[in-house]
């Protein structure tokens, strides 16, 4: 059997698993709740300040901040969903014995892992892109704000999800399903907090504190990609309203777009962690 066919078969199986497990219903439920709440919130925003209370610039700034805040909620849901799906789908299958019959077929473990990864990437990315797009439409309808680069922003959110699920996949080759999910989400949150601390350091002009964010973004690129996504969601006029240092200190605004070098690093990071996962899974006794 060709490797490509194995990869596609396993990717399809992973998507089917995601669609038939309760995780999809839970995700759909959470998304609808978040969309409805944000729709209500944005409509209230428009109703309260719809008159002459806010200038158009202030309105766009407010919309940008709240949109980034809600998008962070989606990225957190995606992180939780994929991390807790990636763990059970790999280490859960090896623990329960489901993987025994599958891996005794004429397939390479690396092809099996690539199929799992691809299926999870499709699922996680599909979720954030669809939910994010729905959110953008909600904002458009309620407060008439449309992000400057929605496609880039949604792609970066998908990339962030990919980074986290690749990490969860690596962890699930070595530790138990639940532990791999908890550790992956824990690291995701830690990196985000480190990014906020770094932003505060930048705002205060404290290089040592600012470096905390830089280092954490290199170690786990989720927060870096999230910063890029926020930048693409927010209105460019925020810099006029806020000073650059104030933007850096605010957790739901971003100062600069992502560099190509950082995107390259994120891609390399995913490839390296995936490679480690393949080596770890290839050596595992089932």
């Amino acid at each position, binding site marked *: 059997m060709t490797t490509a066919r194995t990869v596609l078969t396993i990717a399809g199986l992973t998507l089917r698993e995601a669609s038939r497990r309760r995780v999809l219903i839970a995700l759909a439920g959470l998304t609808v709740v978040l969309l409805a709440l944000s729709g209500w919130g944005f409509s209230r925003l428009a109703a309260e300040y719809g008159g002459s209370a806010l200038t158009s610039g202030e309105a766009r700034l407010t919309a940008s901040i709240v949109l980034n805040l809600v998008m962070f909620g989606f990225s957190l849901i995606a992180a939780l969903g994929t991390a807790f799906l990636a763990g059970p789908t790999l280490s859960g299958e090896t623990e329960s014995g489901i993987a*025994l*019959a599958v891996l*005794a*077929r*004429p397939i390479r473990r690396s092809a099996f892992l690539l199929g799992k990864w691809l299926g999870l990437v499709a699922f996680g990315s599909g979720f954030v892109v669809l939910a994010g797009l729905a959110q953008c439409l909600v904002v458009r309808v309620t407060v008439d704000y449309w992000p400057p680069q929605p496609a880039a922003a949604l792609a970066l959110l998908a990339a962030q999800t990919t980074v986290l699920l690749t990490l969860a996949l690596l962890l699930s080759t070595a530790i138990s399903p639940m532990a791999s999910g908890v550790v992956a989400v824990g690291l995701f949150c830690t990196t985000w907090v480190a990014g906020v601390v770094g932003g505060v350091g930048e705002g205060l002009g404290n290089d040592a504190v600012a470096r905390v964010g830089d280092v954490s973004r290199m170690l786990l690129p989720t927060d870096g990609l999230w910063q890029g996504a926020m930048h693409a969601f927010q209105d460019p006029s925020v810099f006029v309203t806020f000073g650059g240092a104030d933007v850096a200190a605010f957790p739901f605004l971003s100062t600069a777009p992502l560099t190509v070098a950082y995107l390259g690093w994120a891609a390399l990071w995913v490839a390296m962690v995936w490679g480690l996962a393949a080596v770890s899974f290839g050596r595992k*006794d089932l």
Partner: protein
Amino acid sequence: MTAADTTVGQGDGLRGAARLVAGLPPAPAVWCSGLRKRYGRHQAVQDVSLEVARGDVVGLLGPNGAGKTSVIKMLLGLVRPDAGEVLLLGRPATDPAARACVGYLPELFRYQPWLSAVEVLALHVRLSGIDVTAQDQRACLSLVGLADRAGHRVGGFSKGMQQRLGLAVALVARPELVVLDEPTSALDPLGRVDVRDIVLALKERGVAVLLNSHLIGEVERVCDRVVILDRGRVAASGTLAELLGQRELRLQLTGLSPAAEARLRAAGKIERAGDWFTLALPADHDGAAVPDLVRDLAALGARVHAVEPARISLEERLLGILREGSAARSADGR
């Protein structure tokens, strides 16, 4: 010599080599040599070598923790051996393609609970890379008694039904080798008979089977050869005739003259309990030995009331081998 002559010469050589290879018997279904595996401080498998010929049914026996499942998993590439080589159907087991014609029912049988039985089979057919029609897949489910549950989710199956599904998964992609690890552990007596019939049908079709089972009676009924593992080593192996070679004969005799008793002793080792004599016949005795003995005993004046063939069961032989191994280890320990 011209280049054309060289080409012709090489062509003849290749054809000759091809004829030579075609004339060779097919490689064994399973061949492994010097398999070793250590888990932490525990040496689970040490220096195991075994062979399953094409079309043979080989039973793998041994107590719990003997290393049977570890050996099976090493054969299938699921566990990496610390040392040793494995060939499956003539190809190194390190090449996944070696498993193209191998069916496997694991001891820990679990299948995707979110799929239906027919979807599980379709998945395995696709992964095996072999074309099997939907009709044949359904036929496979019928064979294991799951025809009426084909569309049901596996998550709702009982353990016995999941094991039956596992059997269908092992059989669906037209295997040349089937590895069954405890295939009847969750089955009722009827299910066990079904498994026995399936193994016998595979044997008839020339499919090799490696069967790990605690049900020694089943192994004895269906296997051509048996490999007994004890503490990670091969304690004994051979055909059933070789392992159970010692046959016994029970005779009830009265009026035994010294000459008749001498004749009896000449036939083999005897144990006496009242009028009953148990005679251990040599493994290589011919079919005439027993009627000749009875005729001679009658001619020498003995009254022959009963002649019963007795056979050492595989269970007795297995226990004997394991006890011998245990006694030898105790002696070494001292």
